[in-house]
């Protein structure tokens, strides 16, 4: 027995849902969805649960993570309920609910919190630099580059990175654990043999590395010439760039942040270029998509979508500028840009990775993994 909560739909609107109440339950969205199957039939079920405000069921559902927003449901919805956007909204909602600190919820639903947090974290970096920066020497290296490591020694920055990484991982992993509790442990009636956690583990690896589900959207199921692969390639390009960058600054900062200027073919520079080009192309593509609003998935932009893109864009641009100023021997621009770069980078990572959009990268493969475990367990118990 469940009580209906009509106010929930209003709450959900803050995460971005549009006219979800318009739904008259025809099921077209579920029937056209190429990712929906008998085990996981969505998105109508999600709309229904949202309209009725059955939060427990919503929170224990993996369906929102299985959706990759190809937009077929929104395009074909006879009531223009926009199920695709509702699924996006539910991902924001779930991200907020997995987060035990409650920060994610505040960041999603309040612009003051969102921008306040960015400014606060940026200011924190600025203060650190004002008080603890190294000497701002105008002396150049033998190659004519700026001595960045004198101003900001990589060893110290790396310690900061590790602290940040520790925090990020702690928040993200504890949120994923929370997700695990909601999805897998919610239904106490199903016994899950330990073995399944290992046998289904491949899903996590594969989906994390490839975002494989994405490509399934690209079928000609609906008879339309609609290529989703462009989108997938760019997304993949952007994601690998991002991961490369992340690894270089987190693990190999000593190698990455050098005062030497290597030849252009040096792996340090090549990797850096790949990543910056990947990021720039990706960001510009998504900028254009969101402005043109042509495809379903870019029609509706929540404020956090824009913040994320803008922060990532600024991080990339400032990173490129630091690189240019450094190799062309412009000390002060290099120092200021470096500070500014970190002022953008730090809030972006602190906010996006555990609490916002970037966490989706982790939640999606985990959701598929958890879902496979549950389905396998259900099949075994039958």
């Amino acid at each position, binding site marked *: 027995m469940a009580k209906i909560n009509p106010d929930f739909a209003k709450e959900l609107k803050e995460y971005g849902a549009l006219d979800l109440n318009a739904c008259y339950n025809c099921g*077209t969205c*579920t*029937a056209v969805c190429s990712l929906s199957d008998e085990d996981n039939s969505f998105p109508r079920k999600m709309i229904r649960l949202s309209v009725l405000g059955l939060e427990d069921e919503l929170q224990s559902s993996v369906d929102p993570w299985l959706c990759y927003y190809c937009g077929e449901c929104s395009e074909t*919805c006879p009531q223009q309920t926009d199920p695709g956007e509702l699924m996006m909204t539910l991902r924001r909602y779930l991200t907020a609910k997995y987060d035990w600190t409650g920060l994610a919820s505040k960041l999603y639903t309040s612009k003051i919190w969102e921008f306040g947090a960015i400014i606060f974290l940026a200011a924190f970096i600025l203060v650190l630099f004002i008080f603890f920066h190294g000497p701002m020497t105008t002396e150049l290296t033998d190659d004519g580059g700026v001595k960045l490591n004198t101003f900001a020694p990589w060893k110290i920055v790396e310690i900061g990175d590790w602290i940040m990484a520790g925090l990020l991982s702690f928040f993200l992993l504890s949120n994923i654990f929370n997700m695990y509790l909601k999805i897998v442990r919610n239904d106490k009636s199903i016994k899950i043999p330990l073995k399944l956690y290992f046998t289904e583990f491949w899903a996590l690896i594969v989906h994390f590395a490839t975002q494989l589900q994405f490509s399934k959207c690209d079928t000609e199921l*609906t*008879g339309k010439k609609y290529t989703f692969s462009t989108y997938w390639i760019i997304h993949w390009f952007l994601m690998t760039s991002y991961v490369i960058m992340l690894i270089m600054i987190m693990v190999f900062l000593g190698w990455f942040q050098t005062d030497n200027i290597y030849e252009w073919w040096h792996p340090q520079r090549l990797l850096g270029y790949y990543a910056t080009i990947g990021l720039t192309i990706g960001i510009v593509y998504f900028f254009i998509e969101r402005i043109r609003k042509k495809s379903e998935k870019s029609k509706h932009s929540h404020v956090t979508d824009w913040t994320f893109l803008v922060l990532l864009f600024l991080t990339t641009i400032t990173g490129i500028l630091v690189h240019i100023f450094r190799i062309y021997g412009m000390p002060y621009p290099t120092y200021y840009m470096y500070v500014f770069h970190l002022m953008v980078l730090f809030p972006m990572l602190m906010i996006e990775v555990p609490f916002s959009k970037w966490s989706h990268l982790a939640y999606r493969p985990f959701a598929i993994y958890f879902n496979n475990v549950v389905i396998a367990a259900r099949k075994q118990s039958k």
Partner: protein
Amino acid sequence: MTQPNEFDVLAIGGGIAGEEAALNLANIGYKVLLVEKDLSIGGKMIHLSKVFPTLDCGACITTPKVSETARHPNISIYTNTVIEDIEKHSENDFSATLVEKPRYVTDDCTGCQICEEKCPVVVDDQYQWDMVGRKAIYIPFSIANPRIAAIDIENCSLCGLCEKVCPADAIDFTQEEKRSTIKIKTVIIATGFNLFDPTLIPRYGFGKFQNVVTAMQMERQLVPTRPFNNVLRPKDGKMPDNIAYILCVGSRDETIGNPICSQVCCMYSTKQAQLLMGALPMADVTIYYIHIRAFGKGFCEFYQQGKGMGIEFIKGKVGLIKEKENGNLIVRYEDIQEGKVKEAEHDLVVLSVGILPNTDFSTMFKNTKIEQDDFDYVKQVDELSSPAKTNIDGVFVAGTSSGPMDIPDSILSAGAASAEAAGYLKGGKK
């Protein structure tokens, strides 16, 4: 033959609504001109099989009205004629320009169909919704009124055979468009409706998968003058034994711009399903629906009767259709009651297409534009107490020109239009 050019009433459209309105007014004593753009009067109803919920045959009910209209001393009929413009000069004073298109066959035609036999051209028969061929010279359909042949000049090979063989010397290629101006005192719009074109929803594969048909095509398959020798699949002539109906194709759908319900599809599909169970006793029929709108007198009982006969009703709209090698079709839908997406195989799929306004009327009125509602039907300016009234005094609306309607509602609406028109005529110059 010289036609008079003054009438009391101009009824636009020779369907059931136009006929009912014309008959009512003619019975009161007014002179009525009925104008039909098609070759025969009778509208869409004359092509139907049996009609719900009484299940008496459409033709049995239409034909007496058709012949009564055709014979009524107070009614003149122009078929194959379009109205170019209507102008209102003052109350009870309208003029209209009619353009009668050439049939290339004169009234001497006896309907013997010898010409049809000889004509070498075969093109799609629009009265059988393209499921079979017809000749370039043809009697529109067996119970057409007038039962006079016409030549489809676009597809004519100009061989002249018909003219050679016609025993009545009725072929006349010299005919040209005839334009005439008439004076009338009041106008009744009964232009009816169009059916939704399902090619606009490519997911259903209509036009690509030949075993996906419209309900109108199925309707034709169920009448005695059907295109095939039984209910058969248009692709390979196989007798179907597992038929699906998809409701709300082109209605209640914002994506194609028609958010309203067509009011008849639920019932005509239930009716066809019942008839199919009679025609093909071994067949299974499944109806996929969103809501069953069995609202009228006897409708709910009719729906229950269908269920009792074994029609399977599944709540859930079909999302898409795929075709198999053997011509069978896979429909993908969400079974709403179970909340699960499913696929089912059928050997024939019928799309229950919705009703859209026939907006021919919108361009006819010259000096005052006729107002249309949000869905492009004629706007009823006083819907509650004068349902036939339009924004132009003296112009009334009957039948599906003002919105989707079933046959009894159309007939009543035509009755209302005739009463309001009669009141207007009696009122004289106000």
